[in-house]
């Protein structure tokens, strides 16, 4: 088979080669660069959309957070005021209860005191009576004779009273 010269110029071959390069340029442009660039643009758009979405979500979250914070602080205040009023109420009630209890106790003590006083007086009366009886009996035995009980009793009573007075003064 024939070979061409190592260095030969052929205008047709030059034109063919020129057109070859042009055709390959078009192939690259239409089949490689156009689709790849389209995909890259799509991806860029996708990323931008994602970023926008994220930004929106962040904003709404911020808003919700602010809302919650406001609500929370309001609730805090409310709770504080509720506690305050409750405390005041409880204080009042306790004061009232304590006061009434004190009064009651005082009443009881007073009653007890008067009761004791009465008892004491009663006992004193009883003892005096007994002593009078006994001493009258004793004197009857001693004198071996009936004395006027009534006179005698008056006498002894006055005597015991004197002793009691002396005792009170010394004590």
């Amino acid at each position, binding site marked *: *088979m*024939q*070979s*061409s*010269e*190592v*260095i*030969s*110029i*052929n*205008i*047709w*071959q*030059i*034109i*063919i*080669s*020129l*057109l*070859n*390069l*042009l*055709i*390959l*340029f078009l*192939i*690259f*442009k239409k*089949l*490689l*660069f156009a*689709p*790849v*660039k389209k*995909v*890259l643009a*799509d*991806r860029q758009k*996708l990323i931008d959309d994602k970023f926008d979405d994220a930004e929106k979500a962040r904003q709404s979250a911020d808003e919700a957070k602010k809302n919650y914070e406001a609500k929370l602080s309001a609730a805090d205040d409310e709770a504080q005021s509720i506690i305050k009023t409750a405390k005041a109420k409880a204080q009042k009630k306790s004061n009232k209860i304590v006061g009434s209890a004190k009064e009651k106790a005082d009443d009881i003590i007073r009653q007890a005191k008067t009761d004791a006083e009465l008892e004491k007086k009663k006992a004193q009366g009883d003892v005096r009576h007994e002593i009078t009886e006994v001493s009258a009996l004793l004197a009857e035995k001693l004198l071996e004779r009936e004395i006027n009980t009534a006179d005698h009793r008056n006498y002894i009573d006055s005597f015991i009273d004197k002793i009691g007075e002396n005792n009170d003064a010394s004590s």
Partner: protein
Amino acid sequence: MKEKSLSFRIADVLLLAGFLLPFVFGIMLYILLEPASEGIEIAGAKIYFTLHMPMPMQDLPITESQVNSWLVIVALLFLCLFLTHGLSAKHPTRRQHAAEWIVEKTENLVSGNMGDYFSGFAPFVAAIMGLSAFSSLLTLIGLYPPTSDLNVVAGWAVLVFILITYYKMKCGPVHYLKSFGDPVPFLAPLNIISEFATPVSMAFRHYGNVLSGSVISVLVAVGLQGVTHMILGKLPGFLGQFPFLQIGIPAILSIYFDIFSGCLQAFIFAMLTMLYISTGFPEDDYKEKLRKKKSKQN
């Protein structure tokens, strides 16, 4: 990641086959049409057939360089289809990453070297690189590299020259003609020569590098054959014929001349294209002109 459907896989396989089959076809053509060569020769592309043109015009021989160029174009077409098959914005595959890498790197290179005005040149630069690199790399599978044919590279250089001139003409033919008298009018002849030297130098640089690689490879192979014969020639039988020096050494040369030089020349050609087009374009004057036009309209 979702499982791919059967039809997707079949299309994948078909596209890959479309990428690989042109090379297989090229090898078949080479084997079927190539007569067993007599020794080593340095020759141009094989002529498959010749289209005869009317007399004043040259005949058109369809040679290996044209056929191999077409094979490369078909392969690259299917490669593009394969890379862009099943693109998705949400779930990029490894293949998509590769496609995006190619596109983004080329665009960065172009906008970095040429400015944003020329960002549309990215596919053109990618086409130059792809065509040149794949053409040169055809030597790896034993095919004739179209880039070692002057006509092929000259065609590209002419296209680049047309683009350079087109962008220089953007400010009108008067501005274009004036640019030759820059910086001093009597340098105009030199400017004109350098204008035409641009495509010529580009074409010859690329073609010369690839061709010289092939030539040196052939010469080294022949030389190694001679040396082996000298050393082992006295031995009897098969040992005397054993090509022990030809093992390995040509491969190292091939790494340099076929792979490194081929890719480097593709890159250089693309870089020069970008630089010549962007430096030739009088951007400031053009913007000035656009502004004047706008103010006139208003």
